[in-house]
């Protein structure tokens, strides 16, 4: 194997064979080493949140990765390949330009399936909403679908004041017996206030940036209406196929308290579907 091993000869066969072998070993070793090195590096820099989201996004079912422009009626079929980061999506930029020039009109779909959508809020795909306050902060709350699912505020673990939060990284944890998940933060920022019982929002954030890019990935109310209906149907499909048999909808309005309609053993799945945790 090596020149100093007894019986080794510098024959052509040996050189070719061992040359290929050592190349393979070195490539395997280097690739493995590189991924260890990269993961160590990303562990030190604050990329964990970013990578965790990328990885989770990758594992989401295609139905959960539908492009926002379907809800606005801009396109018929499209699955997001940009981790819901519309700022990096060329198709999104293109459609927005068309819209600005008036060639595409953003029309609000017929109904929102009975979910309320507020015109002064922006919506994150992880079912939180965000409202920009005059003082430069934003408040973040659960949207209508999420708040019908999570009715008990005491099950929510809110972050402490001054905590840094990152877009698409866990903001709030939900703990229910035998099921838990996290709710994703809509934008980067720092917690400045935590909402109390009865408050319409959960936390108040000071955004890291107030530029349009920081909010480009959030759904506008007109998109959110169709999206919420889509999400509700998706949740229903998922629950129905598991033999759970939630008998809501069929064109009717969703139950006031969705929470009580979801059986205990389907909670985990329901939370995962809604809050985008694969």
């Amino acid at each position, binding site marked *: 194997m090596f020149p100093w091993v007894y019986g080794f000869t510098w024959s052509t066969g040996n050189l070719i064979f061992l040359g290929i072998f050592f190349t393979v070993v070195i490539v395997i070793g280097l*690739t493995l080493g590189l991924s260890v090195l990269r993961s160590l590096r990303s*562990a030190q820099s604050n990329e964990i949140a970013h*990578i965790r989201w990328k990885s989770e996004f990758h594992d989401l079912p295609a139905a959960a990765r539908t492009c926002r422009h379907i809800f606005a009626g801009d396109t018929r079929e499209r699955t997001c390949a940009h981790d819901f980061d519309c700022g990096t999506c060329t198709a999104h930029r293109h459609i927005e330009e068309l819209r600005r020039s008036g060639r595409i009109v953003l029309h609000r779909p017929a109904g929102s399936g009975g979910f309320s959508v507020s015109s002064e809020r922006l919506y994150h795909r992880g079912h939180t909403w965000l409202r920009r306050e005059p003082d430069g902060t934003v408040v973040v709350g659960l949207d209508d679908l999420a708040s019908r699912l999570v009715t008990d505020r005491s099950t929510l673990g809110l972050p402490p004041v001054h905590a840094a939060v990152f877009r698409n990284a866990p903001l709030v944890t939900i703990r229910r017996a035998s099921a838990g998940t996290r709710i994703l933060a809509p934008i980067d920022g720092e917690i400045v206030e935590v909402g109390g019982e009865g408050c319409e929002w959960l936390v108040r954030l000071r955004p890291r940036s107030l530029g349009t890019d920081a909010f480009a990935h959030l759904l506008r109310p007109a998109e959110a209406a169709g999206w919420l209906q889509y999400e509700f149907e998706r949740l229903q499909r998922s629950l129905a196929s598991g033999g759970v048999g939630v008998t809501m909808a069929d064109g009717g309005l969703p139950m006031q308290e969705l929470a009580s309609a979801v059986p205990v053993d389907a909670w985990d799945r329901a939370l995962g579907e809604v809050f985008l945790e*694969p």
Partner: protein
Amino acid sequence: MDSSLIPRGLQRTSFPRFLAWVLPWVALLGVGLFAVYLCLAYGLNQTNMDNRFAFGAWIYLDLTVIALGAGAFFTGFLLYILRRKELAAVINSAVVIGFICYSGAVAVLMVDVGQPLRAWFTFWHPNVHSMLTEVTFCITCYLTVLAIEYVPLILKNRKLRKNASMLLFEFQLHKLMVVFAGIGTFLSFFHQGSLGGLYGVLVGRPFAFRPAFGIWPSTFFLFILSAAAAGPSFILLTSWLVSKIARKPLVAPDVYRTLGRISGSILLVYVLLKAVDTLVWINRTAPGLGFQASSFYRYGDFGSWILFAEIVLLGLLPALMLLSSRVAQHTGWLVTAAAMACSGIVLNRFVMTIQTLALPTLPFDAFLSYVPSWQEVATFLAVIAYGVLVYSFSFRYLNLFPQERELRSA
């Protein structure tokens, strides 16, 4: 505890039922491990192999499972290098099957050799002219690659991914997967071929010997093709089988069709080349060594029907079936064709390993028979039990079929 390890959104049977499924296989594995102990402690006299039948059931098993495990490299090659995205639906399962096949084969090889502790000699004092050296080097490297490809699947387990370092490593490893897919393909080409070359170079065995192209006998190339054909068919077959056992759809029907088409086209090429190879062998190679090819088929049950079964019945027929769009419409027929294709390859490996050794060479030799001892059979079955166990646990706790969730809610 158990349910928190099962991927979210997937339905798995209750833990007691899972245990009931697993336990018989554990028992089988236990018996096999006892047989392995006997072989290691008392020597290979525990087997029914002998000086004349020096390779037996175990070598046959190795050649077969490695051919069937070729789906891992070939799917990886098609997905990561040729960018056939639709195969992402089966790549995880293919990697697990490949890992099972190769690790099982290596484990059996370790029992099969007389001095397992000297296994490193092959690396230290390699004879690069031996096909077995090529096989040993390639299989060791490729098993490492398969283990590396298996790791991200494990790290994606629901519990493990909560750990940030596991998640990061998985993420970075997955980004470089194309390198491993490339190396896996390269290594697989060589060792699948060398397994064919193993017998093709045996000038002392006119039944197996084939003329060489460059340094490799024709069986080298035939084995690569047949493994590449059998791999996708075996994945089709296993995916279907698992979906029947689990009683839920795991991959979309068009994935079955894609696998069938890929397997069918390669099988067709293989069968044609195999036919040419056989004709050359009958008319030139065997007579050149002083043997009439027909003489090989005069013993016992090993008549020329084997040749017919291998090339036409389990070769050409399934190849045409897999390529037929009418067959592709019915998963049942598609699975039948895939099973036939796999059986053809399994039969080919049997002919290569067992029939080659059974046939006499010296004028005063007799046709030999060999029946494996219970220790050999138990070890053989233990590999199957090991495979079922690894696969069962992987299927329960890892997300082997990315489409499963969507198909369920479709």
